[in-house]
C-alpha cells in the first residue's frame, strides 16, 4: 500500500530543541535494528545550541540512486526513496558521498547502506513516521498541507533546494519563514558560505613546553 499523496512530511528546524526523542524513537524500530536513521546535527556547535533533525528528503531526482553502481536504491511510486535493497547493495558508499543532504550512512560491519525511508512500514498503512509521532516541539510534522497552514501561519513549506548548479525538488518539505519574503528556493551552498561574525578563539597549543601556551585565532 503506498503512502497517501496528501500526507506530507514537514521539517521545521527552527522548532528543534535538540531533545533527541526522534533519534531514540527511530533507534527502537525493528526494521533497522537499533540504528537511528534520523540524524540530529548541530549547525555550528561552537557558537550555537541550534540542532537540525535530518531525515531523508526523498528527492524527486534522487542523487543517491543516480550514482548507485549496483542499482540498489529505488523509489516507490508514492515518491519514497527506499533504503538500499539488501541483495544489491555493495556498500561502496557512493550514495553517502553524493547525497546533498548527508542522509545515507554506510554500515561496513553488515556491508549495507541504510537510510531513512519515512518509516515505510508505518506510513504505508496510514500511520505517522515514528520521529514525527514523538517530536515534542513538532519540528517534525507529518500531515496535510491544510493542517500545517493552520498550525504555522508565519511559515510556508518549501521543497526546492539549490546546490550550486543542481536544483532538487523533494517530497519532504522544510518550513521557511514568510517574512521578509518567501524565497523561491533554498540555496544550500550559499548558506554554507556564510560565516559567523568574526570573533577570536583561544586554542591551547599541544606541542609546546609551556602547558598554558595558547594561540589566538
Amino acid at each position, binding site marked *: 500500500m503506498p503512502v497517501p499523496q496528501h500526507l506530507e512530511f514537514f521539517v521545521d528546524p527552527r522548532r528543534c530543541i535538540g531533545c533527541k526523542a526522534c533519534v531514540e524513537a527511530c533507534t527502537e524500530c525493528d526494521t533497522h535494528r537499533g540504528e537511528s536513521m534520523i540524524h540530529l546535527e548541530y549547525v555550528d556547535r561552537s557558537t550555537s545550541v541550534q540542532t537540525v533533525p535530518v531525515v531523508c528528503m526523498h528527492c*524527486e*531526482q534522487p542523487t543517491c540512486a543516480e550514482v548507485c553502481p549496483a542499482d540498489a536504491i*529505488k*523509489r*516507490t511510486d508514492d515518491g519514497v526513496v*527506499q533504503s538500499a535493497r539488501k541483495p544489491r547493495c555493495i556498500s561502496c558508499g557512493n550514495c553517502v558521498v553524493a547525497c546533498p543532504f548527508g542522509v545515507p550512512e554506510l554500515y561496513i560491519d553488515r556491508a549495507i547502506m541504510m537510510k531513512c525511508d519515512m518509516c515505510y512500514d508505518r506510513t504505508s498503512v496510514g500511520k505517522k513516521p515514528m520521529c514525527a509521532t514523538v517530536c515534542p516541539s513538532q519540528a517534525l510534522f507529518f500531515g496535510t498541507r491544510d493542517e500545517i*497552514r493552520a498550525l504555522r501561519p508565519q511559515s*510556508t513549506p518549501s521543497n526546492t533546494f539549490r546546490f550550486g548548479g543542481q536544483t532538487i525538488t523533494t517530497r519532504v*518539505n522544510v518550513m521557511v519563514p514568510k517574512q521578509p519574503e518567501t524565497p523561491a528556493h533554498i540555496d544550500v551552498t550559499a548558506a554554507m558560505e556564510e560565516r559567523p561574525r568574526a570573533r577570536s578563539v583561544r586554542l591551547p597549543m599541544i606541542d609546546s613546553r609551556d602547558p598554558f601556551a595558547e594561540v589566538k585565532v
Partner: protein
Amino acid sequence: MAQDPPPTREPNDVTVAPDGRPMEEQPRWRQDFAIDWPHDQFVARRDFAKFLVLTSGAFVVGQTWIAAKSLVRHRAAAPARKRIGALSAILPGSAVMFAYPHEHDACLLIRLADGKLLAYSQKCTHLACAVVPKLDEGILLCPCHNGIFDLATGRNVAGPPPRPLPVIELEVVGDDIFAVAVTERTV
C-alpha cells in the same frame, strides 16, 4: 488564501536525468536500470515471451541430449565375461574387491554367512566414494556422508545417495566365479 502549488508531481513523470533531456532521448541503460520501482520491476510481454520460449527450448535440448545418451549407452556392447576369483577362496561372511568391467571400476564381492554371493559396484551413487561393507550390520556404509545401502539388495536406505548401487551379475561355474553384466538401477 492563495492555494499552494500541488505538493508533488506524479511520481512516474518525475524521474529526470541529470542532463535534463526526456526519457526517450536517454540511453537504453537508463530505461533498463530505472530509479523508479514500478519501472524497474516492469517486465514487457515480449521479454516474458522470449524468456518462456528460450527456457522451454533449453529444456527440450537437454531432454533430447539425455535421450540420445541413453540410446547410445543401451546400444553399447555388454562388457565381457570375466573371471573374478575362486569360490573356495572366499569364506562365508567375508568380502573381497575386484574390478569389473574395467580395471578402475572397483566392485565388492560379498559372501554372506549363509553362503549367498552378492556383488555391487563400490562407487557410492552420491559422490563416488568407496562404500565399506558392514556384514554384521547388514549394510554397506559410505563414510564420506554417512550414506547407507542395504547389503542384501544394494538399495539406498539412508543418507544422501540418490540411487541403489549397480549390481554385478554373477555366474558360478564349478569353483570359478564370473562377472557377466552390470545392472544399473534408478530406483
